[in-house]
């Protein structure tokens, strides 16, 4: 059992990396990776939100949608619930923990529309995960997202100092770097236990 749970985390973080293998959440991955500090904060916020969202989505699916046979409505319901959840989390943090809000808060609205969050919730249902498995899968996936965005931020800080040909400057070289990272992460596909 423990072996299986560990596998779920590693699979979410490395083998099925949400950004580099499933190509979800690319927008914030490219947008917020300019500064190392900001990308670490966003990674933290994503871990926080995705873990909670996976838990809520799992409960909602198991106890509301599945018994009523409303399986086909899960995408819409998840969008609705996740968007509201992020808002509530934001308000809660703003009141209860201003320090955490200062470091993560500005990224929370960004995550509302991050398809990685929805993607995790839907994948969990697809794989038939139970509650604990869903939470761990969400946590692992978010960990993978953080890993990818922090790595890209590091690469971009190096790229910035390079004397690039004009056509490659800015977005093009970042996309090339992200593509190379994606190819590198394909190496994890052979990882098995």
């Amino acid at each position: 059992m423990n072996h299986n749970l560990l596998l779920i985390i590693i699979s979410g973080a490395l083998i099925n990396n949400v950004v580099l293998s499933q190509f979800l959440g690319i927008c914030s991955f490219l947008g917020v990776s300019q500064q190392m500090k900001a990308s670490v904060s966003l990674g933290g916020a994503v871990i926080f939100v995705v873990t909670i969202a996976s838990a809520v989505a799992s409960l909602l699916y198991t106890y509301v949608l599945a018994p009523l046979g409303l399986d086909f409505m899960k995408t819409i319901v998840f969008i609705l619930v996740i968007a509201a959840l992020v808002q509530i989390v934001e308000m809660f943090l703003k009141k209860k923990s201003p320090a955490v809000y200062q470091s993560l808060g500005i990224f929370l609205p960004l995550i509302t529309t991050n398809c990685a969050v929805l993607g995790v919730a839907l994948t969990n249902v697809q794989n038939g995960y139970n509650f604990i498995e869903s939470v761990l899968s969400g946590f692992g996936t978010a960990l993978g997202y953080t890993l990818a965005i922090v790595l890209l931020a590091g690469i971009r800080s190096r790229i910035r100092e390079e004397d690039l040909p004009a056509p490659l400057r800015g977005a093009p070289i970042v996309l090339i770097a992200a593509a190379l990272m994606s190819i590198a992460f394909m190496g994890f596909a052979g990882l098995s236990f």
Partner: protein
Amino acid sequence: MDLILITTGVITLIGLIVGAGLVFTGKKFYVEVDQREAAVREALPGNNCGACGFAGCDAMAAAIAKGEAPVNGCPVGGGPVAAKIGAIMGAEAGEVQRKVAFVQCKGSCQVTKNQGNYVGIPDCASAVRAGLALTDCDYGCVGLGTCVKLCPEHAITVRDGVAMVNRSRCVGCGLCVKACPKGLITLLPAENRVAVQCSNRDKGPQVKQVCSAGCLGCMLCTRQCEHGAITVENNLARIHYDACIQCGKCAEKCPAKVITPPVALP
């Protein structure tokens, strides 16, 4: 038919619960927003130049409202904005020292020789990177106008191959200071009269070979100054503005007329 009704009912119910939850948390966790922050933000110029050292006008307004930044912290807005913000925050504004950009080069086409025509990308940084100085002086203004293009206030023009700042237009944002590949532009106090209009750090004879309006490092100015406000470092005169009384004696004595009262410039 039942399925449609159940679906509509369940989704509406979930929507209502979620909406009620949002309203509830919104009320329960309502945080007082500082009204002054919004008012300060209104008073700031809003061009987000970052000259104050904060990440833009919003960050600056938040810092002022919390009392972490001085009310006169905006160098662009200057006195009038400081007075407005001071009124909002209930603090004395104090005088803001307005700063303007100044090009430390006088090497126009008449005083320095041109090395030939440059036909590459019309950008100072590109020319410098390609190893082309355009003028004989390695330190002088390239004159391709990178600063001109950057200036949000259109305060810089290139005349006779040298950039010049229109002091009445300059807001002191410092974008040109960062952009100049030769590091020629500095921010000087606006009421300032004297400034060294050269950046050449070579020895006198070498300077004379390439430019007739360059600082020779002759030390005449340092001997003139009664307040020790001017020194020669690396063969280049440098004015220390905290000691300078703006008497202009150094400018009168300078043989190459490199020390100029910048007020005389356009």
